[in-house]
């Protein structure tokens, strides 16, 4: 049984002539401990899909099952890392992680230990008592990842978590997340528009079509693990990169043609 099973999912925003169908007939299954990236042109509905899986957004048709149980609202079994920095500015890095742990029902020493361990996991044990304004963008997202991992959700949902970071920091974050994932294994649904990022980190890459979004193609990333950044230069990586890019590109061209046809 897949960890996450999405079947025939549809979502429309608004009603009447101004209604926008964001998703139509999405089918996707993610296995236990699988790292799956969802890529697509902007506005294709990939973030909407993640919000529905997170339980933050309702859907009109179809089903979302986590371990065979239908999703009904947000839950502690799904940790979410948002693109925007969601650290509370009035709490230190450690307190931000502890905040989540306490809400998840962990108390006292157990919570303190878990917070410390997870900050160490993302390499921020030296910044536990720093306030978010004292941390760089990459560090903030590392705390957010530590926080999402700390209460041990069944799966991690990441919505372009590195989208706001500069290229160099992105690479560091990709390597860090890959290392954590390879050591600790958990199910990840990762949204991105960065093809290289998707290929580098994932077991499989799902390409979404233009709006209304559906899964157009799923590409297996058969690169060996553990992965290092040198891999990016390998012919097989280039090949896979190209395959994903071509698949997305077909969609962008369609958009462009539609645009000129309307003009």
């Amino acid at each position: 049984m897949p960890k996450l099973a999405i079947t025939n999912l549809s979502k429309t925003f608004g009603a009447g002539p101004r209604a926008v169908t964001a998703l139509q007939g999405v089918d996707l299954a993610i296995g236990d401990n699988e790292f799956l990236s969802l890529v697509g042109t902007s506005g294709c509905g990939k973030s909407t899909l993640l919000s529905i899986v997170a339980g933050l957004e309702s859907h009109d048709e179809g089903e979302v099952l986590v371990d065979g149980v239908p999703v009904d609202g947000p839950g502690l079994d799904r940790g979410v890392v948002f693109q925007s920095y969601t650290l509370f500015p009035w709490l230190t890095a450690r307190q931000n992680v502890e905040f989540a742990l306490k809400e998840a029902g962990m108390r006292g020493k157990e919570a303190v230990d878990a917070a410390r361990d997870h900050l160490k996991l993302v390499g921020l044990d030296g910044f536990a008592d720093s306030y978010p304004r004292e941390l760089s963008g990459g560090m903030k997202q590392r705390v957010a990842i530590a926080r999402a991992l700390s209460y041990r959700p069944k799966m991690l949902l990441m919505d372009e978590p590195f989208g706001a970071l500069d290229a160099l920091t992105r690479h560091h974050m990709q390597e860090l997340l890959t290392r954590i994932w390879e050591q600790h294994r958990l199910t990840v649904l990762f949204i991105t528009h960065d093809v290289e990022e998707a290929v580098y980190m994932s077991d499989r890459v799902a390409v979404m079509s233009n709006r209304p979004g559906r899964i157009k193609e799923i590409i297996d990333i058969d690169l060996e693990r553990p992965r290092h950044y040198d891999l990016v230069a390998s012919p097989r990586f280039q090949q896979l990169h190209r395959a994903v890019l071509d698949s997305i590109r077909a969609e962008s061209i369609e958009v462009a043609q539609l645009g000129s046809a309307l003009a």
Partner: protein
Amino acid sequence: MPAKKPRSLFRLTATITRAQFVGISICVFALLLAAWWIATANEWVRPLFLPSPPKVLARLGELAASGQLWQDASISIWRITVGFLISTAFALPIGVLIGCYKSWEAIVEPVVDFIRYMPVVAFVPLTILWTGTGDTQKYLIIWIGTFFQQVLLIMDNVKGVPWDFINLGRTLQMPERRILSRIVVPSAMPGIWDSLRISLGWAWTWLVVAELVAATSGMGYRITTAQRFFQTDLIIGYILLLGCFGLATDQAMKALGRRMFRYMAGR
């Protein structure tokens, strides 16, 4: 040779040191004072219209010595404190509520927006009719003048809380009320504090308005009686003093805000 440092104080986005800032500010005050002094010393304006700085100071000293000044000021300070606290006590919960819930916004916001544009001064005769000329009437005028502004400012502060903060609370399965108290309110607090600081400035105006029209005590009352005896030195002295009180409370709240919200950048 080292690169030439751009030295202009008046360049877009140019930063200046704290000392420079304070220095410039003090210079402006000194210049205004000097202009006032010179104009009155040369009798360019009639002393009845604009008395000289020493004369104003002397009058204030006289009033301070007799205890009159302190009596007037303490009554006014008491009134603004009570009026402002009542107003804030109403505005905080209502502002947070309508900032969070669209239905509450629909109930409250249009009405508040409408009343906000009604001239507060025009309420003075009505409030006298309703509550007499006692302290209650002063509180009422301060309340009418500040509450409706505060509510809308606080609503905007609460609306400024990032949605993802609330979404994060949801993914942690926090109940709505807990998201409100543990996430929304702390997140909006620095902004709310600023809103209160700004509205306190307005409250000073409404206090004096209320005291000018119908009062038997307070600084506004003293200004009205001074008018009858052409004591312009007292009027100007009290106006300046009120300005100082306003500035002092503003600076105090700013300093307090810096302490409370030390975690914020650039405060």
